[in-house]
């Protein structure tokens, strides 16, 4: 679970929960988590890494230390992690779930292979022939996929490379609302519980007009619309 939002600060709501003692916490690192998912993706129950060693992060993780039987060097062993469900938003997918991603993939390719159930949302559905015309571009094959949903702008308010930038104003509003539980409840009622579907949410946030602004931002085009 991620409570840090980098340059945007911490999620106040998540932080409150973490400090409340209501949730049990386990420490890992980004690569530790990626390795755990990669282990599952490779079909093995553990993988070695040379991180976490010597730290309290290690002590409060579920990882173990072992020696390499060939070199005698110490390694941290990470247990494989098989997520029950993963949702990945991609640029293009065919109706079967063959997917293409443009730009960095973080740990999505490993995640797609590790998850027990995989939901793909896609900016656009493309014909199977398009996929088959350039198989080098496929990064997730259909047999890993349980559902494909065409959700244009589905990464909003997040950034979708080459499509639209993140909506920092909306995210700021969200994080501000989180500071006060009542405000946060109101925010959620309006934007999440109060809407029928994703398109309604998008409409509330400025709809296609807003997306066009974010698209211009993504492409580093200056504009004076706001």
């Amino acid at each position, binding site marked *: 679970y991620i409570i840090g939002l980098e340059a945007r600060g911490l999620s106040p709501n998540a932080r409150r929960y973490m400090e409340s003692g209501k949730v049990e916490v386990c420490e890992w690192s980004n690569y530790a988590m990626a390795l755990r998912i990669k282990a599952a993706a490779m079909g093995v129950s553990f993988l070695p890494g040379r991180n976490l060693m010597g730290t309290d992060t290690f002590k409060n993780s579920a990882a173990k230390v072992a020696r390499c039987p060939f070199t005698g060097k110490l390694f941290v062993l990470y247990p494989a992690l098989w997520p029950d469900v993963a949702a990945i938003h991609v640029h293009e997918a065919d109706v079967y779930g063959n997917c293409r991603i443009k730009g*960095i993939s973080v740990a999505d390719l490993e995640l797609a292979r590790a998850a027990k159930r995989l939901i793909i949302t896609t900016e656009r559905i493309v014909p199977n022939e398009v996929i088959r015309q350039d198989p080098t571009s496929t990064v997730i094959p259909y047999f890993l996929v349980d559902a494909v949903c065409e959700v244009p702008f589905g990464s909003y308010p997040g950034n979708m490379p080459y499509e639209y930038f993140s909506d920092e104003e909306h995210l700021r509003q969200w994080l501000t609302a989180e500071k006060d539980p009542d405000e946060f409840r109101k925010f959620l009622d309006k934007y999440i519980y109060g809407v029928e579907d994703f398109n309604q949410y998008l409409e509330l946030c400025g709809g296609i007009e807003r997306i066009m602004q974010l698209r211009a931002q993504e492409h580093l085009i200056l504009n004076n619309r706001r």
Partner: protein
Amino acid sequence: MADYNTMEMMICAAARYLEDGAAVAVGTGAPCAAAMLAQKTHSPNLVIIFEAGGVAPILPTMPISVGDSRTFHKAIMASGMCDVMETMQRGMVDYCFLGGAQIDMYGNLNSTVIGDWSKPKVRFPGSGGANDFGSFAWRIMVITPQDSRRFVERVDFITTPGYLDGPGAREKAGLAPGTGPYKVITNMAVMGFDPETKRMRIESVHKGFTVKDVQENTGFELLVSPELEETPEPTEEELRVLREEVDPHRYIIGR
């Protein structure tokens, strides 16, 4: 000499350590600004790497996230987290930048909790990629304010390994020999680490500050380098590039 603020001073001081051709793993904020500044001044071939997969971008603006589009704008490769972290694990990245709520005399960093871990007074994000960077990169760089609540005798929680409890401890724990904290850059001074004891030591003090100022804002005893000097001030050119090209909106330097 031009006027400049604390953040500008720290970024310029940090940028100078990044020699041309080196590879540096950065996050968002001041470290990224330092890397951009170095690249636009003395290190045109600096390789900037982001943990989510962006490799050697030509950064058009400061990224907001280590995974946003800026981090691979005109990059040589848009890869993924495993590829980047494994490139670091193979020892191919020279520098990384880290921060934290606490740092101790061995450069251990805490970005997890203040207080007891199981009942924290304050909860921070935890490692994120910090432990990985601090385990894999050859040299750890830290930019942080000089403050005795931050510079503590013993961090409440070692999120990311510095020299742990002293000479040989990293190696004993299994970390690669020759790696560890390198420079800690604050609003008052640049600190390095004594090669023998691996303890933090003052290497240069910024104009307007003294060793005493630095020590008074540190919660443990600092060593002082025999070659103590005054930190060179930012040059006009550095400040111009930083203000006009790196951070024109003053997201970082306006803090």
